[in-house]
């Protein structure tokens, strides 16, 4: 993308600077779209996202790659612990209900074999979900701190003040060149 831009601009400047040289047009060429496959970034990011990536990518790509790996590992570990843990707990508890007399104990007249799968797992699911969300956002916060970035805070409640304090806030309309 940037290649075609830099190739096009000098030509445009030339023709603007020398209107008298108009008769000697270069031979016409058919203009087609970029023939190279777009990169993943070009294809998928919005313009502002692409700018963000471009701004931060050059800085220290080795450190960046390291940080991404670290973040992924932390998130995967968190997800596996909670997910596999939940599944194993469910299997163990239902085994317990089936094999022992535990299932026929009653709680307010309801046997545990009914009460546990009927309502018992729901609160656990909610707690795990809330826990995961908080921890995952903390992991991302840590990643951002390592790279000296501040996260988009569309909904994240984690430390919005920190982002405000450290981000230079350009006045509206100043067009802040970055």
């Amino acid at each position: 993308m940037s290649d075609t831009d830099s190739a096009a601009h000098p030509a445009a400047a030339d023709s603007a600077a020398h209107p008298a040289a108009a008769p000697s047009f270069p031979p016409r060429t058919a203009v087609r779209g970029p023939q190279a496959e777009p990169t993943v970034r070009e294809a998928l990011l919005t313009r502002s996202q692409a700018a963000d990536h471009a701004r931060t990518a050059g800085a220290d790509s080795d450190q960046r790659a390291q940080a991404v790996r670290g973040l992924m590992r932390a998130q995967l570990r968190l997800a596996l612990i909670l997910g596999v843990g939940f599944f194993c707990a469910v299997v163990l508890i239902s085994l317990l209900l089936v094999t022992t007399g535990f299932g026929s104990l009653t709680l307010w007249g309801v046997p545990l074999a009914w009460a546990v799968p009927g309502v018992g797992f729901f609160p656990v699911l909610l707690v795990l979900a809330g826990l995961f969300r908080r921890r995952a956002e903390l992991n991302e916060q840590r990643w951002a701190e390592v790279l000296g970035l501040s996260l988009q805070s569309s909904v994240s409640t984690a430390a919005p003040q920190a982002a405000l304090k450290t981000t230079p806030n350009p006045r509206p309309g100043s067009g802040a060149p970055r």
Partner: protein
Amino acid sequence: MTGEQIAVLAAVALVCAVTLLLGGPGFSRSTGDFFVASRRVPPWMNASAIAGEFLSAASFLGVAGLILAHGTYGLWFPVGYTAGFLIVLLFMAAPLRRSGAYTIPDFVVLRFRSAMMRRMTVLVVVAAGWLYIVPQLHGASIALSATGGAPGWVGPLLVALVVLFVVLTGGMRSVTLAQAVQYWVKLTALLVPTVFILLQVGFWERLELPEFHGAWSAGLATLGGTGDQWGDFSRSLSVLVALMMGTLGLPHVLVRFYTNPDGAAARRTTTFLLGLLVLFYLLPVLLGVIARMVWGTTAAAGELAGTGGLSHDTAILRLPAAVFDGLASDLLTALIAGGAFAAFLSTTSGLVVSVSGVLSQEFFSGTVRGFRLGALLAITVPLVVGSATSELALAGAVAMVFTFTASALAPVMLLGVWWRGLTAQGAFWGMAAGAVSSLAAQVLGLSLGEGPVQDGPLQLLVSPALWCVPLAFAVTVLVSRFGAGQPPSHTEAVMALLHTPEIVAARPSR
């Protein structure tokens, strides 16, 4: 026409009218509006919409029916459905949103850059969508014929027409609003009858209940339960695996994650969503248990079975008439039927949107016109298939679709998001192995046995998630490791895109 029939038909007409009104010619402008509402949907609304879309005929009618028929086995369905979204939250929500792709095949292209993989995924997604629409249409058929006295073809046709109108004129933006409303409609439609029935059974005591313990004995023999605890256990486990993993591969649910503004919002949406699902599922569980108390005796069960082939799935619809009489029964039945119709409409429209999105991007160059053509295809095929196939229990049929997506899509999606070593070949063969094994096993099991609840070796065929899902994982990993292919060269960049949060600005260096 009885009072009940008039009330039911009025309620169904009202639900259809509201859906048409909300989904009518709206504000959508661009292709992006059609597909994912231009990503401007706030989390609470998105969560309501996902819940509205997800709570299908199986949840609304099927869960209580299974509890009535098979005892504690039915209790695992709500747990599995909800836990499926825990897995989505843990492994998929934020990365999927950050991938920026519209559909599951788009994600696959981003990850593998392979036309063959894309074709394969399109096939699987469209098949899953079609298979999932069929039980919704069946549900509409039995609901209208059991309570409204209409012929069996009226319900499916009505659902098809309403959904087609909404999707063709509004696209996903209006569908999002309509879906969000549908969740609350469904919740109310079960909550109000539950409260009244509980009051009647528990306090007003006008009903002679059979022996209370009858409700708790797991699996009444006459109703198909076996009393075999180990069989129950492994069957429940298989359902749990299928539902937990299968949610990852539901095309109409995953497409909703693209309508979140960013990854953090996608996580928040999913957390809200778990709360909404838990709130809802308490109701069918309660109603199922009450239905067991009412029809717990063998004689009552025989009487219920005598009223029509799909008796268990209509249990909730018949409950008010068994507990109340007169006007109260008519009104409550109408409320439940209206809610059930909301369930059929919302799930079907979600499925139609996602299937037609995939179809139009693959075959009709992704234009609005292609989307409309795709929508037409997405609903007519199940309509034809549904009228030809035999009738299964709703929750059982939906569990079979979950088994299919859990085997075919979940391993590739999970490993695609989290494993750098995955190759296009590995993904292809894993998806093929999962799709073929789960489909073949279930078709074989159904043709050999009589229903989705079987014992012994047949059970491994009828509910095969326990071996199909690990098989698909194993094939994917082994072919990736030892096959000829290499992981795609851009894997590193894609992983960074999926897993790093959205950035606002670089901080000044300290």
